[in-house]
């Protein structure tokens, strides 16, 4: 009996140490290895994407775009006119294969971005969407009760501020251009970019903090 039990323990021990991935992890690995062998996908493209999106992009590029728009009126005009062309000129095209439309917050208008279908998002400038952006609750509530969603994120809008909700698709993705806060006159683009939050570019943040 004792022998049997120690065999079991040894088996469990081996199983733990084999670090067997979860079923979905095995399925992804299997699918990728088959598609690579069939010549349908280049593993370097997959690896490069993973490296870039897990380590490098984040929302920093978006913050640079916003800072440049605040600092450079000609760039802002170009960005609002054709977001895709403006970010391409900065070398920020990529996964967001559709068009980018930048929508501007003003004293009278607040913009909020959602993807009601899945989670379309301007990846090439904002990285991977936050966990809440991918939830069914956000996809539904952003449209049905945007003010309540905003309040949950600490954005309490006066009744006379219009809320515009933009539904991203694979063809057309949106980014919010937040308002430049007071007290930032003379700041350079890097200083400005540092105060731009990811949520401000999705619309769940509004009044950016300067210190």
């Amino acid at each position, binding site marked *: 009996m004792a022998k049997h039990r120690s065999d079991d323990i040894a088996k469990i021990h081996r199983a733990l140490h084999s670090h067997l991935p979860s079923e979905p992890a095995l399925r992804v690995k299997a699918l990728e290895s088959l598609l690579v062998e069939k010549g349908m996908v280049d593993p370097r493209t997959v690896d490069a994407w993973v490296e870039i999106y897990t380590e490098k992009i984040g929302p920093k590029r978006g913050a640079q775009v916003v800072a440049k728009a605040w600092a450079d009126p000609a760039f802002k005009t170009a960005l609002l006119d054709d977001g895709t062309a403006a970010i391409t000129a900065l070398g920020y095209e990529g996964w967001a294969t559709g068009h980018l439309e930048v929508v501007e917050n003003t004293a009278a208008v607040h913009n909020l971005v959602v993807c009601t279908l899945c989670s379309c998002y301007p990846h090439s400038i904002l990285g991977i969407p936050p966990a809440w952006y991918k939830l*069914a609750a956000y996809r539904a509530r952003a449209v049905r009760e945007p003010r309540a969603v905003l309040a949950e994120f600490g954005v309490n809008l006066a009744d006379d501020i219009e809320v515009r909700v933009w539904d991203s698709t694979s063809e057309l993705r949106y980014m919010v251009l937040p308002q430049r806060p007071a007290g930032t006159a003379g700041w350079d683009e890097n200083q400005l970019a540092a105060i731009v939050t990811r949520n401000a570019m999705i619309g769940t943040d509004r009044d950016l903090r300067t210190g």
Partner: protein
Amino acid sequence: MSAPDFVAPLAARDDAPAFDEPWQAQLLGLAYALTQAGVFTPAAWSDTFGAELRAAAARGATDNQSTYYEAALAALEHLTAGRVSDAELGTRVAAWRRAYQSTPHGQPVTLDAVNGDPETSP
């Protein structure tokens, strides 16, 4: 307002990581590479992914990141079904499982480690 799960706080998850496990990033990277290679379009991806998310919600799946990425995996398997058969995928999943189980901890896991598997021998 009678469905507490549905109105679960969103902001509370603001600092949650975008990926809980590496395979989730690998999956999106693979989907991206397949759209780049023209195997399917970005629109087909979002339509199929959206349909899987709706199906998950209809089944009553918990509204969390795990459900989200499982729907993404289902969408990817659906979109590649014409290129990779269920049987082929099942065989390969089993081969990777055996490779992980037979590779000592700390060593790289490769399909070559699975001896005598005709599907995976070089």
